[in-house]
């Protein structure tokens, strides 16, 4: 019953790109997603919500990264998403400063 290996990536670079995209990329997107929302809405509620939602989103993004056909492509998608989210966050922060 082990998973059929024709669907898996045996070589190093596809594996490496997917694992890093999943763990690191997924984390960055998940955190920036919450920070972007927190900078516009009630930041305390969003931050305390992120204590569970950020973790769950991170794990979901991990799974999505592993399901992707190409590890570098998913890295690209995660980086572009992160940049967009970061821009939203910096605008939000400039308009609603916390400090």
């Amino acid at each position, binding site marked *: *019953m082990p998973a059929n290996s024709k669907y898996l990536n045996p070589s190093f670079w596809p594996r490496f790109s997917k694992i890093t995209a999943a763990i690191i990329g997924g984390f960055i997107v998940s955190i920036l997603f919450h920070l972007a929302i927190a*900078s516009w809405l009630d930041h305390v509620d969003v931050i305390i919500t992120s204590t*569970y939602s950020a973790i769950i989103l991170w794990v979901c993004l991990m*799974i999505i990264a592993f399901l992707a056909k190409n590890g570098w492509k998913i890295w690209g998608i995660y980086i572009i998403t992160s940049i967009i989210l970061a821009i939203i966050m910096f605008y939000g922060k400039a308009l609603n400063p916390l400090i």
Partner: protein
Amino acid sequence: MSKRTYNILFHLHTVSGIVISVALYVIFFTGSFSFFRDEIVNWERGHTVKAPEEINLDFDETLEQMSKERNLFGRDIEFKQYYNEQHIGVNLGASKDTLLTKEKAAGAFYYLNTDDKSTTDYATSYSLGEFLYRLHFFAQMPHPFGYYLSGFVALFFLFALITGIVVHWDKIISNFYVFRPMTKLKTVWTDAHTALGVIGFPFQLVYAVTGTFFMLKILLVAPTVLALYDGDDKKLYEDLEYAHPHFEFQNTPINKSININSYVKQVKSKWNNFNVNEVHIFNYGDKGMHVSVSGNLDYKNKINGYGYTIYNVTDGSIYGIKDPTQKTSYLDAVKGIFYRLHFGDYGGYGLRIISFLLGLIGCFVILSGVLIWLTARNKKNIPVKKRKFNEAVVRYYLAICLSMYPITALSFILVKVVNPTGMSLLYQFYFIGWLLISIFFILKKDNYLTNTYSLLSGSIIGLSIPIVNGICTGNWIWVSFEKGYDQILFIDIFWIVIGIVGLLIFSKIIKTQKNNSINK
């Protein structure tokens, strides 16, 4: 679900599961026992806590005693009940009086026994309950590695849970009732793994998420502080209401007698069934002195009933108040519910016993998963070398995991025979004993023997725990029952039940084994 998705998810579930399995087993096993952490501690010390969840102390008398040893003026003093023990934590901040020498102004932390007023430091009051509780998040490893390790294990546990449930999704209903114990071994493991996994899923999901948060919160806090708060972490903790307010030290003694007990009394009379578990004094004896009395409503009344009142001592006015009877804010609800759900401490013994059983089911799901992994790879088309390696992996895993049962039971005996045990002896006994038993089982090279022997020895030792307790302390079960030593009685009965159930399972295994060998 496409074939590709299914196979990838299946592989992710397998790999993440097998990598974390032993660590996760240790977390589940010790975590299950940690539901009874406070009972174990009280059992070990021979204490009985009559009014749990609350500090029972004459604060003014205690402060007077303390002032004989130290100058209390200008200090922040906190009394806090961390657990349902007779010991409460006393935290003395450094004195803000600049005229004192450094030595005299130094802060301190110790435990105070509310019953006989004796004080102990952390190492001497170390107990088996604390040991098992801290092993639950690998706190025995150098800080912070143990915390991060357990945090990442929890994270990948969540990963394994989600991939596992998605893989099983199509068969979730049809296979729920399937149990084929008479067929080949692999289907037995698979059926048990999936059925119990599905039953335990909601429980385990909650523990995975909350556990990850407890241990990896730095990963959430650090980016938030850097990006939104420009590095000002104090402001974040203030916003999330984790920090006490700050009151200026004015360096002028207050000319008024201080009566902390009356504040506690006032708070308790204001809110029905309010249990005070923390009294925090700011700037003791100074004009800027404030007293914060905080606690929770009884869980029977409200699960998230956190509240406090802060008094200004100089003019007797109320500085700040959080009324626990009012509607709980979303912030407090999330903060409170995380701990309640993880500790399972809001529903009395019943809830904790169920949680204990679900925790043991978790242990079983982990081990059956490892065994599926082995049997699925024990095929003729796989090279012998690889099969041998797989077999050795499982042998090591089983030996390490299953020997936890006898060594934990044995530690309960140790803490009664050598009492108080102290931190270093407990460490040596548990870890060296665990290592020796594991090595014994590994060398025996027989998983069946590992399983039966650990079960048999752990159960026999477990059954002898109440007897050893009776001999060493005179608190036999009937004595504890008669005198109402609830916590002591609970642990004794707890071990009798575990021991008997363990022996029943053992005899069942032996019987099936005999039948099988006759049939062959």
